């Protein structure tokens, strides 16, 4: 049975995963993170199927989505989640390189909860990820049915 994780990070770039994890580590949230390497895997996790079949019930407190991913991109994952009565309440935060207006508009149209642009400056990135993690995993009261904090 796959371990229970409270944060789902969907990110195709190995390096970005490593950097994001490094940033989350600073907030002691790294071991609460499950990584999906594309949109399809992210949906597999949420639907408890495929590679992630059989993990414990309950939803992550937040889904961190990269926009541009192979197979199914972030916007499609978001769209699928928002049209599913069981997943629609899960907070979703876009974490992306893109500052393009069209991406922002599309994301908000599809009901994203937050949109964070990855800055080139790593220290700023760490700061952003820290804040996102702190807010959604610690401050925010998640919708009912979400996994409780382990430990």
């Amino acid at each position, binding site marked *: 049975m796959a371990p229970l994780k409270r944060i789902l990070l969907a990110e195709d*770039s190995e*390096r*970005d995963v490593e*950097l994001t994890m*490094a940033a989350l580590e600073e907030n002691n949230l790294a071991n609460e993170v499950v990584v999906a390497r594309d949109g399809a895997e992210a949906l597999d996790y949420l639907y408890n199927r495929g590679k992630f079949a059989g993990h414990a019930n309950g939803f992550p407190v937040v889904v961190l989505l990269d*926009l*541009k991913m192979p197979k199914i991109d972030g916007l499609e994952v978001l769209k699928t989640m928002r049209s599913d009565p069981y997943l629609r309440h899960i907070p979703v935060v876009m974490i*992306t*390189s*893109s*500052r*393009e*207006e*069209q991406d922002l508009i599309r994301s908000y149209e599809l009901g994203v909860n937050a949109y964070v642009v*990855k*800055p*080139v*400056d*790593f*220290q700023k*990135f*760490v700061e952003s990820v820290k804040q996102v993690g702190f807010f959604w995993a610690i401050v925010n009261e998640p919708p009912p049915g979400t996994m409780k904090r382990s430990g």
Partner: protein
Amino acid sequence: MLQNIPIQRKLMTVNLLTSGAVLLLTCLAFFGYEVLTFRQATVQRLFTLGKIISANSTAALAFDDRDAATEILAALKAEPHIVAAGLYGTTGKLFAQYPVNSPAAFPAAPEQDGYHFERGHLAGFQPVMQSGRRLGTLYMEYDMGAMYEQLWRRGEIAALVMVVSLLTAYLLSRTLQKQISVPILALAETAHAVSKQRDFSVRAVKFGEDELGLLTDAFNQMLAEIQKLNATLEERVRERTGQLEIANKELEAFSYSVSHDLRAPLRHVDGFVDLLRKQSAEKLDERGRRYLDIIAASARQMGTLIDDLLVFSRMSRGDLRRAKVASESLVHEVKDAMQGETNSRRIIWKIDGLPQVEADAPMLRQVWANLIGNAVKYSRTRDPAEIEIGCDTVNDEFVFFVRDNGVGFDMQYVDKLFGVFQRLHRADEFEGTGIGLANVRRIVSRHGGRTWAESNGDGGATFFFSLPKTTN
């Protein structure tokens, strides 16, 4: 004077004027000729008559027989126009006269031979000769009145003929001018319809194979050509628009991929440099750590460049969303947002008289942010720095300016100032990517305005941009 009247009236006027003038001239010439020949004939007749009278009166003169002479002269009764006649002897004395008791004053003595016209009369003298010897002089006076009366009557007839002729000419030209005017009017009507309704599919009706027919053909041909050109033009515009749309899409895709993909490796460089620094700093010497700093700084710099370039491309592509913008509060907002930099410095601000304009607010904010940011940046070495922001109204434009007492620039390079990635200062003097003023120019020109700058070297710089007062 004929220029502005309709062609039909023009044609008729021309016709009537021409035929009237011809008729008048003909009549005058004819009349003149008549008068001349009539006078000559009268002189000739009078002279002949005189000859006969002279020949008959030689005996009476020779024998000094007054009664005979009077009788001979009385024969002139047959010619009622002869109002007076007289015979003078060699002495020059009046010998006999006709009519006998004429109250008319006869010339006291014969004058030079020959007849001449005076006061409607033809009068004169001719010699009475016999075998080469002059016996006396005959005087005769002829009343031309009757002749003039006759001429008048002819003139009346001529006038009548002229009136009738002109009337006929008028009626004829009224009918015949249609041969010319109708095709021209049809052509004009078609031209009017074309220019008014922009309908190039109409054609002028052709009435014959003359020059007007040729003109109509040529006109119709031109219309067909225009119609064809219009159609191909529309086709071409569609084609070009399509191409432009494709190019625009490609550009969008390009900048999208720049935004996504080009920044990712830079993030990685900076991120891993940072991780390396954290984990292995003690294994590196001073130089190694400096190299890491340089790598990170370069990555960040490139990140800034890419961001600026993306902003620039967005400013060029995005739609203008015009709304009323209060320049004064916008400028204060922008200025206040720079407090991080300005708080630690002494800057004397003078912001005054900024009007409301119609513009895309976020874009205009970018303009002010760049210009004010530059003024703050390049006056860094001054204490206190002075920054003046104002506006003049020139014709139908607002001309805004931002003036500082900073380091200024060399007017020699003023042309480069607004170019993309053009810098007049080294990055270690004043930081920057060289995109700000290019953005300013792009945004202002998209609003229908202009940008320019002035500097007197070290004494500071003034940047101007204009915006039209009203936007259509």
